[in-house]
C-alpha cells in the first residue's frame, strides 16, 4: 500500500501547456508516473509529446476526467487562476467518483484559498493537497507515482511516511532516511501557505492506517499551530513512532521567512512551542535535520522494528 497515490493513479496535469506544466510533466513521466492527459482551457485537442509519450490536452476537467477516468490532478496554473482551477477540479471529481487535487502553485491570494478550500470541503470525495507545496510521491522499485516537482531519483520504496510543510527540507528528510538504509512509503508536502487543504493530521491518520508505513517523519516550520494540534492528536491516536523537526528556531518574530505562512505573530507560532508540543506528545525530536536519520533509527529500535 501507500497513501493517496500509487501505480494505479491516473493523473491529469492542469496547466499542461505552460512552462511549469511541460517541464514537470516530462519529469513525472520519466519517473513512470501514469499521466493520462492535461487540461488547458482553449487548447483542447492538442497532442503533446512528453519524453516519447503522447499526451492529449482537454479544454476542461469535466471532459478530461470523462475521457480518461483520471482520479488525480496536479495544478501548475499561475497564481491568479489557480484557485479557479482547484474549484473546477473539485467539482469535476465529485461528479465522477472523487479524486485528489495537488496544487503546486505558489503565491495564491489568501482569500482565494479561503474560498476554494470551503468549496473543496463541500465535495466529500475530493482531497486537496497544497498549495505552495512540492506535491506527493509514492516510490516503487522502478520509478513510481510522482505528482509534483520533487526530484524522483532521491527516493526509494520503503516503510517511512514523510509529511512536511517545506519543499527542499522534505528532500533533506528523504535523504536522511536513505542515509540510514530506509526508504519511503509516501512523501507528502502539505505546503507553506497559511490556508491550505490537507493538514498534518490528515496525513498522520492515513499513515497510521497504511500497512506499508511503519514510522513517520514530520517536518514543520514556524507560524500557526498546526504542529501543536498534530502532536496533540498523535499522542492519542498514533501507534506508529514519529520523528519531528521544526524549522525556524532562529527566525525573528514578525518577519515572514519566505513562505507566506512562516511568520511568528503576536508571540505565537515559535519553533520552541512546537518542539515542546512534540516532546509532550512523545514524538522523537531531531533538533538538527542532519540528525533525522539517527533519531529515526532510535525510534525504530525502541518499537522493536530495527
Amino acid at each position, binding site marked *: 500500500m501507500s497513501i493517496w497515490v500509487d501505480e494505479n493513479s491516473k493523473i491529469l496535469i492542469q496547466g499542461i501547456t505552460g512552462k511549469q506544466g511541460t517541464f514537470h510533466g516530462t519529469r513525472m513521466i520519466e519517473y513512470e508516473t501514469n499521466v493520462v492527459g492535461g487540461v488547458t482551457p482553449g487548447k483542447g485537442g492538442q497532442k503533446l509529446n512528453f519524453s516519447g509519450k503522447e499526451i492529449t490536452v482537454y479544454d476542461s476537467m469535466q471532459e478530461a476526467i470523462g475521457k480518461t477516468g483520471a482520479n488525480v490532478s496536479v495544478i501548475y496554473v499561475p497564481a491568479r487562476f489557480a484557485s479557479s482551477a482547484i474549484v473546477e477540479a473539485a467539482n469535476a471529481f465529485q461528479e465522477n467518483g472523487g479524486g485528489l487535487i495537488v496544487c503546486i502553485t505558489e503565491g495564491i491570494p489568501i482569500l482565494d484559498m479561503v474560498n476554494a478550500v*470551503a468549496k473543496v470541503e463541500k465535495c466529500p470525495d475530493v482531497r486537496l493537497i497544497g498549495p505552495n507545496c512540492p506535491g506527493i510521491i509514492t516510490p516503487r522499485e522502478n520509478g513510481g507515482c510522482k505528482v509534483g516537482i520533487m526530484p524522483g531519483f532521491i527516493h526509494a520504496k520503503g516503510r517511512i511516511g514523510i509529511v512536511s510543510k517545506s519543499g*527542499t527540507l522534505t528532500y533533506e528528510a528523504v535523504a536522511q532516511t536513505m542515509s540510514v538504509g530506509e526508504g519511503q512509503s509516501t512523501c507528502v508536502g502539505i505546503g507553506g501557505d497559511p490556508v491550505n487543504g490537507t493538514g498534518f493530521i490528515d496525513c498522520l491518520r492515513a499513515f497510521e492506517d497504511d500497512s506499508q508505513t511503519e514510522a513517520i517523519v514530520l517536518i514543520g516550520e514556524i507560524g500557526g499551530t498546526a504542529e501543536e494540534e498534530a502532536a496533540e492528536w498523535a499522542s492519542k491516536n498514533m501507534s506508529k513512532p514519529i520523528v519531528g523537526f521544526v524549522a525556524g*528556531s*532562529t527566525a525573528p518574530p*514578525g518577519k515572514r521567512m*519566505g*513562505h507566506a505562512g512562516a511568520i511568528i505573530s503576536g508571540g505565537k507560532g515559535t519553533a520552541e512551542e512546537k518542539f515542546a508540543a512534540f516532546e509532550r506528545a512523545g514524538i522523537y525530536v531531531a533538533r538538527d535535520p542532519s540528525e533525522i536519520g539517527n533519531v529515526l533509527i532510535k525510534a525504530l529500535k525502541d518499537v522493536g522494528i530495527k
Partner: protein
Amino acid sequence: MNIHEYQAKAIFSGSGVKVVKGIHCTNVDEALNAYDELNSDIVAVKSQIHAGGRGKGVLYDPITNDLIMEGGVKIAFSKEEVRQYASSIIGNKLVTKQTGKEGKIVNNLYIESGCNISHEYYLAVLIDRETKSVLVMGSTEGGVDIEEVAEKTPEAIHKIWADPLEGLANEDVVMFAELLGLEGTSKHEMVEMVNSLYAMFLDKDCSMIEINPLVKSESGEIIALDGKVSFDDSADFRHPWRNDLRDLTEEEEVEIRANKYGLSYVKLDGNIGCLVNGAGLAMASMDVIKLYGSEPANFLDIGGGATRESITAAFEIILEDKNVEGILVNIFGGIIQCDMVANSVIEASKEIGLDVPLVVRFSGTNHVEGTEILNKSDLNVYTATTLAEGAEKIVNLTRRSK
C-alpha cells in the same frame, strides 16, 4: 504590505467605517494649517510609522540620540502645543516596542480632531488559520496591548467567524455587539462597523485590519480612532492602486532589491551568511548554524528559478552586511542543478572578490559534479556532504580567522 494610519483611515471613510476628521501633514507648517482647518479645541498629533506602540514610544534625535519627547501620539490643547509636538516628532526617530532599538524616522504626521471618549474597545479582522476563515475579534479592553488581554483575561475577547461562502451571519454580528456591552444606537453602529470592515477586508484583499482603540463617543457613536491595515501581497495583481500607498522608507531597501532577483532575503544580526534553496531548508540552515555555536546573518532563499545572475546578486547582498565573516551555501538540488550553482559560485566570488571563508554543501541533482567543479577550481572553498558538517566547518573557520 502595511500602510500608515492616515491611509487606512482614508480607506475606512470610503468603506463606510466612521472616523473623525483628520489631515495628513509632512511638516510643522502643514500641521499648524491643519489645526486651523480642523477648527477643533483639542487635536491629536500622531506620528505615522508602520510599527505599533506609538503612543508609548519615545522620540530621539536621529544623530545625537538625545531624548526629544516621550510619546509619539500627543493631545494638543492649543496651536502652540501643535507646533511644539509636531516639531518634536517630524524628522526624529521614534522607538516603540515594535520598532526595535534602531527605531523609525517619522516623516509623516496625522492631525486629528478631538473626540469625547466614553469607552475604548479593540477590534480586529484577520485570517484564522485553524478554521480557514475570516475572524472578527473584539474586546471591551481597548487601547491596551491586546496580547496582554489575551493572556490575562481571555474571557474579555469575543470572536465570530465568517462562513467563507455565506459571509458573516447577521445574528452573530448582533450577538458580538451585545457581548461588547453595547445597546441601542451604539449596538446598531457596531453592527454596521463590523459589516463594513468585513466587506472592506474582502474587497481590498487585506490580511489584517486592527483598530485599537475603537471608541464609543459620549454621544454613543462608534468611531475608529486608530487603524492598522495590512494587505495580502499575493493579491497585488488585482490592486494596482496599492503602489501609491507604498512607503518605501518603511521597507528594507535590500529586501526589495533581493525580491527583484527572485530572492527572498531577511537580514539578521549574526555573522554567518547563508545562501540556500527553499524557505524551509533556509530556516533549517540558520538553526543548525546556531546549534554549532554561531548566529546566522540572514535568511536567504534563492528559489527554484535561480540563475547565475541571481546567485551573484545573492552573494553581493550577503556581503553588504559588514557583520558577515563567512558564508554557508546549502543547496539540495531538485529543479536547481548543483553544477550550475557551483559554476555560479565560482564566477560570483571572482566578480566580487570574495574574501571571507566559504563552505558549500551540495546534495541532490548533480551534487557530485557540483562538488567536483568546486574542488578543481582555484577558489578557496570548503565542501561538505551534510548540513551539519557544513555548519560546523563554517563556524570553525570564522572562529579561526578571528
